[in-house]
């Protein structure tokens, strides 16, 4: 047991985050497999991913880097910089959602509406549900941001930023997967 005394066990809520991510993965696995099944049936219109989605990809990758920077400053207890980079991540996250929206309005203007063909319905649903997960992340980032501004409460545990970091990288990687999936299968 002496060995165990030195070892810090993984915080239960980190396990929980990973399991939560597994659940979300299963949800998107559901969407992807439905997509593949439908694609092999009649009446499927293929599509090209709108250009603006590539810009949003760049933005979300940048936001992943910025949250790593924020986490690094938190560990060094440089709280002003931590707050700043947290804010940057939240802004980039919001920009990502905005760009997704712009991409859709462009498609809509071209006549690619959600009801035109099942393939477009899938595009809207998959990208939309992912964007909802990003919105959830942005809200959590804002909560952390407000907390870090508080003068009364000082946060020493890195648990929240660690969880945020994991989740944010996850939505980033999930988007990269979805983009590649839509390019190849769309």
């Amino acid at each position, binding site marked *: 047991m002496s060995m165990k005394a030195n070892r810090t066990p993984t915080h239960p809520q980190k396990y929980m985050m990973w399991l939560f991510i597994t659940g979300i993965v299963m949800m998107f696995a559901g969407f992807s497999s*439905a997509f593949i099944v439908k694609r092999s049936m009649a009446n499927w219109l293929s599509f090209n991913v709108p250009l603006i989605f590539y810009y949003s990809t760049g933005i979300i990758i940048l936001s992943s880097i910025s949250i790593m920077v924020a986490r690094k400053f938190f560990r060094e207890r440089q709280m002003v910089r931590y707050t700043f980079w947290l804010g940057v991540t939240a802004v980039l996250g919001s920009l990502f959602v905005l760009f997704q929206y712009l991409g859709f309005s462009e498609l809509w203007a071209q006549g690619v509406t959600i009801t035109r063909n099942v393939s477009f319905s899938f595009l809207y649903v998959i990208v939309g549900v992912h964007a909802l997960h990003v919105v959830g992340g942005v809200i959590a980032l804002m909560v952390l941001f407000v907390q870090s501004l508080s003068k009364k409460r000082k946060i020493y545990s890195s648990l929240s930023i660690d969880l945020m970091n994991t989740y944010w990288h996850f939505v980033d990687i999930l988007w990269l997967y979805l983009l590649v999936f839509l390019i190849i299968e769309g």
Partner: protein
Amino acid sequence: MKNEELIHQQTEVAGVAHEAHPHYHKQSFITKYIFSQDHKMISRQFLVTGIIWACIGGFFSVLFRMQLGFPNDTFPWLEDIFGHWAAGGRISQGFYYTLVTMHGTILVFFVLTAGLSGTFSNFLIPLQVGARDMASPFVNMLSYWFFFIASIIMFSSLFVQTGGSSGGWTFYPPLSALGEAADGSKSGMDLWLTSIIFFIISQLMGGLNYIVTIINMRTKGMFMTRLPLTVWSFMFTAILGVLTFPVLLSSIVLLLLDRHLGTSFYLSDIVIQGKILPNEGGSPVLFQHLFWFLGHPEVYIVALPAMGITSEVIATNARKPIFGYLSMVGAFFAICSLSMLVWAHHMFVSGMNPFLGSVFVLFSLLIAVPSSIKVFNWLTTLWRGNIIFTPAMLFAIGFVSLFISGGLSGIFLGNASIDMHLHDTYFNIAHFHLVMGVASMFGMFAGVYHWFPKMFGRFMNSTLAYIHFWITLVCAYCIFWPMHYEGLAGMPRRYYDYSSWESFKSFEGLNTFISYAAIIAYITQFVFIFNFFYSIWKGRKVTAKTANPWGATTLEWSTPVHVPHGNWEGEVPEVHRWPYDFSKDGRDFIPQTEPVGANEITH
């Protein structure tokens, strides 16, 4: 560092002295009984909500059994209660389908998923692994309240003018996707779907907590191989839930879009009431795939906790170590994995590729192997045991009996060629009611009777419990055994009235008999409900002498009679052995907390 220190170190308020040990302050009524974060209180909340739902869902089955058993009679009191849904004292067709749908939904989701694993996972996991509470008590509380919101929405859907959802608990489109298709597919269906979304969130929050608590919060010495089988079963149940409920969520998202935004995921080439719908390119079979990917594991989400409870109760009351502990765990794992590979055996008649069907036949029949291992182990545990027939033990043995009876008909249904004939007949009804419906109810009863003294600090009345058991068991077989014959004769399920078919007229008497048995079974449950609520306040008290009434070895019986918030008053006990040391070395039982003696052979 200890887990509890780790959890409570998160946010420290500057200037306030912080202690490593958690403090459980005196609680107000609201924090203790309503918005409680104590896993034991949450478990009781799940149990009582589950009992209320079971009364409602069971009552619905009595109502539609009255229609089936007495199709030519009228019951004026039905009109007094249900108004135009039972005009003239006969249940209307639309209402009949709502009753069938709601009976399935309530029993499968609200009673046997939330009521069963919500109650016992919450109550037993922290107590049996030696944790002070769940990994996240707050998320655990949210899990109950999301379930509560789901319950409120589902209940309110029964009072919509067009009636509750009537598309079956499997809610296949296009019936569920088009409001024009039936009255029950209008706003009742929307409320139904919303309720299930809340339910899924509740199950996910609960499931995450259960898994993490088991993986991460075990006390010193509680290796995974020393976990009671209950805890193993709850863990596999939670894993199944976390992996499959999100897929149901995605199928519901697509269905809601089909309903409200005019997409065509599940709809194609439909003419309804002379109107041609613009939807094209969808496929209802896609929905069936997505639904049954949850739907099949769901029956194991229902059955596994009952299996775990049965294993524990049988070993304790046979005063013998459970036979084949590791094979039991292995069988749980096998069932859990296989259950996600068999979903399409519900769809043999959907026109899918026969080759694909044969793969699903193979996997479905393979599930018989771990199931038989479990049954074999229960029977060998009972074999030459020193059996004490407590009410819990009777229900556990009843579970084994029902599981065998219902499981055997599964072998017929798992074969695609036989299933073509038996699909959607009463044979199928008999199969799943015995193997996962009534059997899991028995597992739940076994759990309530066994852990009631720990839950409420009082005993339930045994005489009433024996009456409850024998009548319920006899009625269960009287209801479902005859249905096998009806099903083999081709009698389809979910029909409102069979009297226009010459071929089914011979079953009229049998149907009346089944309905009588169903009504008696339903009334008998009130013996249990009276016993349950009476005993909470008036039952015989558990004293220090009877603190471990069944002579069990597991950790929950080492807590004080009235378990405080935080479970153990001093340190959490250390575990030294597996949980099934019964009748060993001349001793009746050895608790898990007792160190292994110098001359003792460890398991």
